[in-house]
């Protein structure tokens, strides 16, 4: 083995907060060979990002490296003075961030930002600098790189902006690049392209790469070695294939088992924590074939931009702003049978959330109908039924921060006289138990709960209205894998015991496959394919479905 390009020994970074000293990174050690890709995996709060920032000496106050050593090409970085560190940053070690929309300065052209990064470390004439920048933009797959130099970030899509950020990180051909969740904010198909390009770039340049991610499948498709972080420590490290196939730590094994892709569809997922199986009711009989309990027929939804009078006048003068209306849902017809789960998949902008809102009675269709048992879901712009309830994506946003959760659960039922005030407390407690929360937590506020617990509250709130249909809009997208598994299990159990009809919206193909009887694939506002879940995944008919399935990184743990 050659000399490691990066060697980390006993690195510890602590945060000195009001609540006391929090050890975010504890005694982390690893080394990196030239050209090697290390996948740093962990759930939120595991310290993986802080580790990345610690390597660059860019930990925000009140955080600080308290012990350990980071050697880059043999040079010690911990304790190095700021000017020397700065001379290394971007030149020998550089970083890519998660959200490409937030990283580039919207007020500066891409050329400006690249030249600044270039000239920070070497003197070059403007022409030479531009030439180098154009070269790099071309290398990261930007078409027309000369025009790209003059463009501003907002003219580019998220994926393109991330490519620009990668180009900036590559400017000085650094020996190490740290990539902090660089594809998490992107759609699967863009993610697949970027993963391919990164693979190429690493091979061409010989740069070592630390790829930080919560997504085991993404990491596995790229990394030579994997390090699993848990509560600030690296608990397991080894060659990717070995770690994934034969994990030595229980935590890693649980993490793998919690992935929906690794379990037969419809079965409960293995979880890290205790499974509270609160309900054990026999399965509901299969729905009759021609049942159209919830039906959407010829539904369209168009969003019109508000065009000001001035813009209209400018339009007449031939200088319109070019903003058009968006046709978010195009002529969608589908039926959901009683007791079935329909999965709705698509990338961002596919219209899946808008369709979900049409079905939930939150938005009215521009044309077409949404009917529940032949009665319209919305009347006169208002939701006309209690039988449909909705679960939202982000449990941090979907609960009123200033209302006790017990009240949040009971207020809808109280407002509609589904129960009397004297019964409220017992009613709330019974629902808390059913979704796996301690009944006495009803007096708490949302901020006292974790993300998974909040989502349980949101589920209890929806179920307290005694609905027959549950529309779930990305209900597990913002949760860690192990929590995600618990919530998916809860959905599966509740659906069986309560005979719920569900529409499950997600960008995550494996989650949708796991919970759904039938799956509808949406693309640019239309349903391009609809059929039984297994058929769609095993034998997709539409081009887009195939592309989508191919773009998803898959953990293949079976030995060939």
């Amino acid at each position, binding site marked *: 083995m050659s000399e490691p390009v990066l060697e980390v020994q006993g690195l510890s970074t602590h945060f000195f*907060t*009001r609540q006391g000293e929090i050890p975010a990174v504890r005694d982390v050690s690893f080394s990196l060979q030239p050209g090697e890709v290390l996948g740093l995996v962990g759930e939120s709060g595991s310290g993986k990002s802080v580790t990345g920032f610690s390597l660059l000496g860019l930990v925000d106050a009140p955080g600080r490296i308290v012990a350990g050593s980071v050697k880059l090409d043999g040079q010690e970085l911990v304790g190095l003075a700021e000017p020397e560190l700065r001379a290394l940053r971007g030149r020998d070690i550089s970083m890519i961030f998660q959200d490409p929309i937030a990283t580039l300065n919207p007020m500066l052209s891409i050329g400006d930002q690249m030249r600044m990064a270039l000239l920070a470390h070497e003197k070059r004439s403007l022409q030479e600098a531009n030439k180098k920048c154009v070269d790099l933009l071309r290398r990261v797959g930007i078409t027309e790189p000369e025009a790209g130099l003059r463009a501003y970030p907002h003219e580019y899509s998220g994926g393109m902006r991330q490519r620009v950020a990668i180009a900036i990180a590559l400017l000085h051909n650094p020996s190490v690049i740290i990539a902090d969740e660089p594809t998490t904010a992107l759609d699967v198909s863009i993610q697949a392209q970027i993963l391919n390009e990164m693979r190429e770039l690493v091979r061409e340049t010989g740069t070592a790469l630390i790829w930080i991610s919560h997504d085991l499948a993404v990491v596995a498709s790229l990394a030579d070695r994997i390090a699993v972080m848990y509560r600030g420590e690296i608990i397991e490290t080894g060659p990717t294939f070995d770690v994934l196939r034969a994990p030595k730590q229980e935590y890693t094994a649980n993490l793998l088992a919690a992935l929906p892709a690794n379990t037969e569809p419809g079965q409960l997922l293995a979880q890290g924590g205790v499974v509270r199986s609160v309900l054990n009711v026999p399965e509901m009989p299969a729905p009759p074939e021609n049942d159209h309990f919830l039906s959407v027929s010829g539904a369209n939804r168009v969003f019109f931009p508000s065009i000001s009078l001035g813009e209209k006048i400018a339009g007449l003068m031939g200088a319109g702003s070019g903003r058009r209306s968006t046709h978010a849902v195009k002529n969608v017809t589908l039926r959901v049978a009683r007791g079935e789960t329909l999965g709705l998949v698509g990338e961002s902008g596919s219209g899946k959330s808008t369709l979900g809102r049409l079905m*939930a*009675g*939150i938005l009215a269709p521009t044309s077409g109908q949404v009917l529940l048992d032949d009665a319209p879901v919305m009347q006169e712009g*208002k*939701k006309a039924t*209690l039988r449909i*309830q*909705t679960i*939202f*994506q*982000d449990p941090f*946003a*979907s*609960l*009123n*921060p*200033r*209302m006790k959760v017990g009240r949040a659960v009971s*207020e*809808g039922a109280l*407002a509609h006289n589904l129960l009397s005030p004297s019964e409220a407390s017992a009613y709330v407690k019974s629902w808390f138990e059913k979704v796996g929360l301690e009944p*006495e937590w009803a*007096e*708490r*506020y949302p*901020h*006292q709960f974790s993300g998974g617990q909040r989502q349980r509250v*949101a589920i209890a*709130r929806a179920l307290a*209205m005694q609905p027959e249909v549950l529309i779930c809009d990305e209900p597990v997208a913002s949760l860690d894998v192990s929590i995600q598994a618990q919530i998916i299990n809860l959905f599966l159990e509740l659906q069986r015991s309560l005979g719920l009809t569900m529409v499950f919206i997600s960008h995550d193909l494996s989650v949708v496959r796991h919970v759904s009887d039938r799956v509808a694939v949406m693309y640019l506002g239309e349903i391009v394919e609809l059929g039984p879940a297994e058929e769609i995944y095993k034998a997709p008919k539409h081009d887009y479905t195939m592309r989508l399935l191919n773009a998803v990184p898959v953990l293949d743990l079976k030995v060939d």
Partner: protein
Amino acid sequence: MSDRNTPLRVFWAEFRENKMAVFALIVVVVMMFLALFASVVSPHDPYDLASLSLLDSRRPPGFVGTGGYTHILGTDPQGRDLLSAILYGLRISIQIGLAAGFVSLTIGTSLGILAAYVGGRVEALIMRLVDLQLSFPAILLALVIVALLGQGKAQLIGALVAAQYAYFARTAYGAAKAERGKDYIEAAVATPLPTRLVVLRHLLPNCMPPLIVVATVQIANSISLEATLSFLGLGLPVTEPSLGMLISNGFPYMMSGRYWISVYPGIALIILIVSINVVGDQIRDQLNPRLRK
């Protein structure tokens, strides 16, 4: 994670860490008490014309008056004990500041939330009006209104409200518009909860933090604006001397070295306004979501 861990308690625990802000809060509370009980704590009753003697007017601090009483802060041009006049003036200033602040808060918040929640034409109409007014300096508006309506407490409060409600409306509108787009409001609408409940229990409580910040600033501003108007001779009638009026009364004597008539009421005014603003600043910092870790 105790169950008594309410948002208010958490807030107070954090507030307590800024010693300066706690001190300012104590000052504000003490001054409010002094003002409330001005008739009890004041050594003299400045409205009791019978006890005034022009022989005692414009005397320096420490002067022993004809009544045998030592005027700690001296006397004003009418021969009133300055300390007593300040306490009574404080009462008027605080009354006006609070009244104008709360009326503006109520009107502004209602309009702002109405505009944000209802949308469409109502929104356009209300917000155009508010923006129009915001593009016009508050002091000028107040000046003109007072000039036209004449002097008096109600007119003055009316002028201050007219000059300030727009700030509340803007803030409430901005907050409500942002909250309106959040999932918890959508969840409440999707339940569906009656509009009244969505607005009163969900929207309004979550719009309060920025409004509280604006309210502290605006109460301080009202007090300052009232003093300025009184100073310009457009505030309250002479029979109800606010702090601004006292300062104004002393202005002509300043050049001749009788500084105390203006300076002491001024110091009282400044301590009050600075304290309110220090408290307001701390609340603002604590409520700014973008600075929170």
